[in-house]
């Protein structure tokens, strides 16, 4: 098992944002998390890579308690793709891609560059390798951000609304790259409102509301035969 989340609680000040989350994630699962704004989706994702410290409860990664020490030792094996890309503004595309794998001694500079170029060809941005992020469109930035996380040979990638900052005409190119990546043996957890994408991508769907997991199951059950009122309501609201 990749992740085991037990009685996870996260508070900001006095408000509980995650209330007793229990969750198990197997290797190679493709999970979509849906839920209304403020329901705690981002916070849950951010707990899974320690960008947020759980208030109580525990997270196990490959059966070991995920703490700072373990996180350090797995160096970039938990990748993340952010809503607003977060490419490094001061570095060119190729440097964005090669910086971390080289500094972490995953590969030599030459290996990193040729691996990066292969990925850039795959997403048809080979002519952008010396561009700075500010010269790319949103869709291009997000695709580079996705291959940047792939450069680390991750075991899991967390996606937090990867298309919600994009102009509509660029959403497709990013989602199809995510689908392409999903053929790899990488666990993927995606927070998104794109239900068509979820239909194609997900092996499991999780619905959150008010800091709790309200319902989870395969996409057939979740989208066609939702059991709870709240999920039914949520689905009819966004369709």
């Amino acid at each position, binding site marked *: 098992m990749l992740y085991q989340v037990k009685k996870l609680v996260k508070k900001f000040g006095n408000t509980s944002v995650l209330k007793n989350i229990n969750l198990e994630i197997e290797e190679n699962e493709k999970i979509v998390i849906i839920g209304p704004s403020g329901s705690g989706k981002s916070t849950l994702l951010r707990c899974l890579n320690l960008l947020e410290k759980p208030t109580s409860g525990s997270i196990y990664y490959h059966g070991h308690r995920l703490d700072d020490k373990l996180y350090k030792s797995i160096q970039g094996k938990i990748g*993340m793709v*952010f809503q607003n890309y*977060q490419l*490094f503004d001061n570095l060119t595309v190729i440097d964005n891609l090669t910086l*971390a794998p080289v500094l*972490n001694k995953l590969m030599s500079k030459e290996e990193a560059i040729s691996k990066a170029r292969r990925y850039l060809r795959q997403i048809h941005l080979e002519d952008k390798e010396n561009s*700075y992020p500010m010269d790319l469109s949103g869709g291009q930035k997000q695709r580079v951000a996705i291959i940047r996380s792939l450069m680390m040979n991750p075991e899991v990638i967390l996606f937090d609304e990867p298309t919600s900052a994009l102009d509509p005409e660029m959403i497709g190119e990013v989602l199809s790259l995510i689908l392409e990546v999903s053929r790899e043996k990488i666990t993927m957890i995606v927070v998104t409102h794109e239900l068509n994408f979820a239909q194609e991508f997900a092996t499991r769907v999780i619905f959150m509301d008010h800091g709790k997991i309200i319902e989870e199951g395969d996409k057939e059950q979740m989208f066609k035969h939702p059991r709870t009122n709240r999920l039914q309501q949520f689905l009819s609201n966004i369709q």
Partner: protein
Amino acid sequence: MGEIWDSFYQTFIFEDRYLYFLEGIKFTLIIAFFSILLGLILGVFISIVRDFHKQTGKWFLLSKICDIYVYVIRGTPTLLQLMILYYVIFKTSTLSPIIVGILTFGINSGAYVAEIFRAGYDGIDKGQREASKTLGLNYLKTMRYIIFPQALAKIFPALGNEIITLVKETSIAGYVGIVELIKAADIISSRTYDYFFPLIIAAIVYLLLTFILSKVMKYGERKLNHVVSG
């Protein structure tokens, strides 16, 4: 015409007085150069210690010491700092006044430089640090390759201001007997009872110095420009 020539002669040529000005310019340049250097080194170091504490919670004591240093330096006049170093701390030492001057202005500038860099780090989207963390980069690597270069580009104009302020501030070094440019001008005028040429020359030298510095900073700004994504 004769009067002006006479004044010029008395100020610069008689008894080789121009040598005073050359000495003065030399010491002004030496003090300015080394205190800028010291200020930058101190300021960057202090800003990183404080930022490291802010990001990780570690190094509490060292960071507090840095806070106090910045607070004290910014809260007292530079002239007072100079006098305390010269008349109290290094009173019995044989340290040359030039060194005391460099230490004073460098230590002084370090506090301002630290604040400028802090504003730079704080102005960077915290997502940049998060992205770096998820790629397995630790604090120092993140600082060195991502945060510092971006901050530097953003704060370059403010850094330029600080450097120019510092250069002008070195003019108070005369108070502790360093014959820098202003002091040299003062010595000559007190002999000739004529302030015109000495002060004009001092002004021109300072203007030239700050002009060159601001050109250099502008050049640096252009070089770093691609970093500031607007």
